């Protein structure tokens, strides 16, 4: 048992407060750093952190227990192996890799080896869906892991090789570029163009382009900026939602690495448009390996006066960006949950109204936009609204990045115009065989063959970019179970329909698997799914039964009346 030194811990906390701030919003980064140091969060650390921030110890423990990357009970291994259990990796052979990891290490998932070297855990989507199964070891990513690679990976860990032997960032294949991905702009070029315009001029330009939020909800970006810009407050904030947690998406991970400057340009333009002085990138904990790189880019931008005071000579335009890490919670992709998390709380979505544009981070007007939205906005400022909206449909202008995974020959990143039919898309990715496509990730919808003529657009089938192709051999009931397991685990747990309802849907799927579910109970569950859609507190809760509903609706005959194998 490690003897903890109270005086030393308090000194560390007080040093961390100097970096992250005096108020509660410093809580997550402080806990992240302390966990890094101690391997877990001992009770003493949580208590002293609470007192240093003027809150109760139970509040700190509550926050720590919410995020799956924090550990309160026991020290983690030197190497924490997190195997992705989400659908795409599941389809590409996760189960065998899991088995082999257990065999090699002699422990089960959730355990740590006796020598303190390895901890084995499952995690939800690592954003490597096109190259699964994916394994995250501390901050190193391993793609396309096969059972026979497992012994070597573990041996490399033992010899401390993994830091040198593997690249920090595993890129994804861009299979198809369009106007967005093929831009040739230099750092700051978007911002320079925007600063020539007035604040309202920038917003007008964005409005003209028809740009809608790329996260999937499709809220008009210009309206969001307009509302935040008009709100009266001494402080305003710009937040980049880089909490790309939706199963099947990985395009933001790619963008953050390959189009970093333009994303920061976009954030700075947004700050200019609404009058913000501070920005955050909320980067999901699974992308820790990107943090250092992003910070280097930010530093370079500060040196080039693309951040800081009087940016590019614009008198009074001051803005800076800070990277804040998530800690393993899908729900933090919901914007109000993200703000709660930034403030040092559990990532529990807020009641709306009021909306973040009015009452956001620390009750100040705040805009939260997706990574891709900022990139698009920066490019629009240089190339104009028409360049953007000549692609896509009237209500869904522009091109969209899609993360394609599953049963197709060419998984990867595609830039395609909105309004494309599913059929066309499947042709692009060479997945014409598909019996169904999951559009929009776990919270999206499962589209069967008969609907492949539908289009991907905000006015038809909306998507944040996740496309998972299911080949003819896929058992759709297993897919539904995987999605529902995901929501049961990732629900924030505050509202009754999402917390309790999804458990009942999952139990129902297990009954179906055993061939023991009556049609009338299935109908009751479909009504319950409707309740979850209608009565949950946040958008994620409301969309949590979508996969369940669409799979049941489309594949009833495949699912009902099963005879279990072991029967």
């Amino acid at each position, binding site marked *: 048992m490690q003897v903890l030194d109270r005086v030393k811990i308090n000194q560390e906390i007080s040093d961390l407060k100097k970096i992250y701030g005096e108020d509660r919003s410093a809580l997550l980064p402080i806990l992240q750093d302390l966990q890094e140091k101690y391997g877990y969060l001992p*009770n*003493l650390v*949580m*208590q002293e952190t609470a*007192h240093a921030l003027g*809150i*109760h*110890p*139970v*509040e700190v*423990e*509550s926050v720590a*227990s*919410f995020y799956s990357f924090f550990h309160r009970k026991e020290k983690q291994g030197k190497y924490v192996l997190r195997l992705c259990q989400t659908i795409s990796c599941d389809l590409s052979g996760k189960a065998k890799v899991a088995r082999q990891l257990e065999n090699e290490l002699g422990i089960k998932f959730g355990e740590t080896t006796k020598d303190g070297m390895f901890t084995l855990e499952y995690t939800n989507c690592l954003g490597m869906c096109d190259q699964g199964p994916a394994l995250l070891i501390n901050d190193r990513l391993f793609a396309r892991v096969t059972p026979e690679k497992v012994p070597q990976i573990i041996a490399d860990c033992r010899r401390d090789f993994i830091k040198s032997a593997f690249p920090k960032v595993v890129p994804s294949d861009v299979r198809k570029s369009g106007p967005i991905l093929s831009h040739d702009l230099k750092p700051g070029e978007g911002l320079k163009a925007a600063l020539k315009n007035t604040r309202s001029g920038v917003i007008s330009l964005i409005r003209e382009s028809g740009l809608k939020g790329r996260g999937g909800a499709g809220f008009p970006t210009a309206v969001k900026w307009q509302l935040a810009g008009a709100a009266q407050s001494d402080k305003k904030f710009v937040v980049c939602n880089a909490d790309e947690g939706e199963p099947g998406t990985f395009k933001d991970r790619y963008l953050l690495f390959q189009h970093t400057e333009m994303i920061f340009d976009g954030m700075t333009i947004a700050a200019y448009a609404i009058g913000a002085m501070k920005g955050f990138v909320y980067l999901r904990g699974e992308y820790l390996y990107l943090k250092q790189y992003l910070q280097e880019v930010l530093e370079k931008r500060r040196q080039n006066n693309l951040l800081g005071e009087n940016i590019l000579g614009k008198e009074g335009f001051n803005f800076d960006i800070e990277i804040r890490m998530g800690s393993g*919670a899908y*729900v933090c992709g919901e914007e*109000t949950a993200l*703000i*709660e998390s930034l*403030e040092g*709380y*559990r990532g*529990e*979505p*807020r*009641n709306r*109204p*009021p909306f973040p544009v*009015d*009452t956001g981070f*620390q*009750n100040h007007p705040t805009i939260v936009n997706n990574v891709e939205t900022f990139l698009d906005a920066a490019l629009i400022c240089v190339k104009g609204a028409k360049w953007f909206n000549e692609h896509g449909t009237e209500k869904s202008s522009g091109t969209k990045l899609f993360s394609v995974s599953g049963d197709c020959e060419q998984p990867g990143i595609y830039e395609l115009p909105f309004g494309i039919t599913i059929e066309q898309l499947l042709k692009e990715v060479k997945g014409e065989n598909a019996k169904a496509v999951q559009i929009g990730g776990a919270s999206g919808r499962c589209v069967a063959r008969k609907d492949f003529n539908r289009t991907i657009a905000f006015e038809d089938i909306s998507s944040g970019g996740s496309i998972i192709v299911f080949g003819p051999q896929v058992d759709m009931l297993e897919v539904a179970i995987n999605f529902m397991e995901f*929501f*049961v*685990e*990732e*629900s*924030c*747990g*505050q*509202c*009754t*329909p999402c*917390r*309790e*309802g*999804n*458990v*009942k849907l999952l139990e129902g799927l297990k009954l179906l698997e055993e061939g023991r579910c009556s049609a009338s109970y299935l109908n*009751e569950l479909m*009504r*319950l799914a*409707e*309740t979850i*859609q*209608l*009565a*949950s*507190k946040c958008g994620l809760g*409301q969309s949590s039964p979508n996969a369940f509903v669409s799979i049941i609706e489309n594949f009833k005959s495949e699912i009902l009346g099963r005879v279990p194998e072991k029967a």
Partner: protein
Amino acid sequence: MEDNEKVMTESTVRAPKSTTPSTIKAPEDISAIGATIKVTIDGKEIRVPMGTTILNAARMLGINIPTLCHHNDLCISGVCRICVVEVEGMRTLQASCAYPISQPIVVHTHTRKVRQARRHVVDLLLARHYGECYSCVRNNNCELQQLAHEYGVDFYRFGHVDKPTYGRDNSSYAIVRDMDKCILCRRCVRTCIDLQEVGVYEAFERGNQTRIGTFMDNPMAELICINCGQCINRCPTGALHANDPSDAIWAAIDDPTKHVVIQTAPAPRSAIGECFGLPAGTPLTFEMNTAMRYCGFDKVFDTNFSADLTIIEEGTELILRLYKALVKKEPVSLPLFTSCSPGWVKYIEHFYPEMLSHLSSAKSPQQMFGAVIKTYYAELNNIDPADIVTVALMPCTAKKFECNRPEMNSSGFKDIDYGLTTRELAGMFQEAGIDLPNMPKSDFDEPFGTRTGSGVIFGATGGVMESAIRTVYELITGDRIDNLFERARIMPVRGFEGIRYAELPIAKVGPVPDLLKHLIPNWDWLRGATLKVAVAHGTANAKKVLDNIKSGGKLSECHFIEFMACPGGCLGGGGMPIPTNEEIRAARAQAIYAEDEASEVRKSYENPAVVRLYNEFLVDGPCGHKSHKLLHTYYTPRGKKLV
């Protein structure tokens, strides 16, 4: 006074932003153009101020919308989703408790979707709710049970758990936690953090693993808990309840060798009727006396006696501290803090141990009475104190902890053997088949039976201060307080404002009364002085007062401050009938002040029983040697660290 006013008006809510009420404020002038908005609910129209919630608008119209996580004392939560309604033009249902109206809307409260959602919410909560109603302390007073009834639940649509997951935590003297009955409404979390600033509970984990936890999952006895029981009062189910001693009390009553006496605090009499279907604020003082005798208690005493005794002891302590500070120029801690509320005492022991010297050393009325019964009363009646069982009927769960403090045994015996709450006494009455409202009336037993108003107002926030002012003012000036305040109603210290401040000029002084002659030569040093006092209730308000004092704010100039752990004072205590809210507390307060006005004695120093005690027993006077031994105590700096 500016910083003081700021302290007094700031909200105590330090809750997550997601649960703070909407920032859309109702305008001050609601007749101004655009200040009110038309809302149509189930075809009925009403104009409401901007920011009014749908729930409140519906209530104005007399339309019932069920609630569960919502509580009028607490900030908005919006998590249970039982109160959802359909708003025209919106795709999803809206939680009416959390939806601020900012534009004209049309609302429907019982459409198919709404009825289905509510029924599902109840079904889902029942699926995880372990236990059967007939073995639950909250049977017939449970909000979940009520909803199941209202929504016609006649089977467990989504199943039902048949085994407990967590088990019961009986470790605390005061509070029992039975998390298998928890429905995660988080009222206890909001109560403990926002109203009380204690922080025992928070939500742990997430998803279907979500539960209400305590720091390090410690049991209640090993936590920083002040035992105030406010969480119990707001729990909609039986997940939180008090540690009930009534079986042990029945056993004492049944034991012929035991002389069982009960003292009754002022607050329960104003509320116990609620347990028998009467409206809040129906006083049943004298019916209760008969009923307690009917149960088998040998004597029924009034805690008002020892409340008056407390005023004499604490008032003398105040005078002595002022005398030391102003005349002798000795270092003493001022302001003096009251010590009647055991929740408050434990709060300061944990959170501000460095300020314990401010706390009056006088025991609370409950403990003083116990000490007097096991000495003076035992002598008077020639009973062996070992055979006396002292029961205290209290509005309070913290009293259960207080009577078990090891230092509370100055007679050589436990001052008080059992702390019994209002709810628990009502339970004993029901068990004995007593129809309380129809019991004949009877008086308290002698020798402590005087009806005293200065004692009874201890039940309301500000009451201790009001009693102290009545006595101290008259002892110093020789003048009647009634000349300053009509009918001795000291209105500046009354009411429910979280923190109240008052000043009392002492224009002239009189002769030193006999009672204090051995302590003070004259009052000249107080002539022309202004006595500054404050009152705070709810420990979140107490925290603000203490912080203000520590930072040298206006409240540090006070001489005397009353603190009560519970919002509303004892009448809002954790042992009082459930539910509680502002209207109920106001009704109880009204009953208490009415009893004060009807009393023969309204100033503590005029209570003949108290005078007799000093003449016959505590002959070296207030704060004398004997009173110090029996009526005063010491405190433990506990701190707020568990590891």
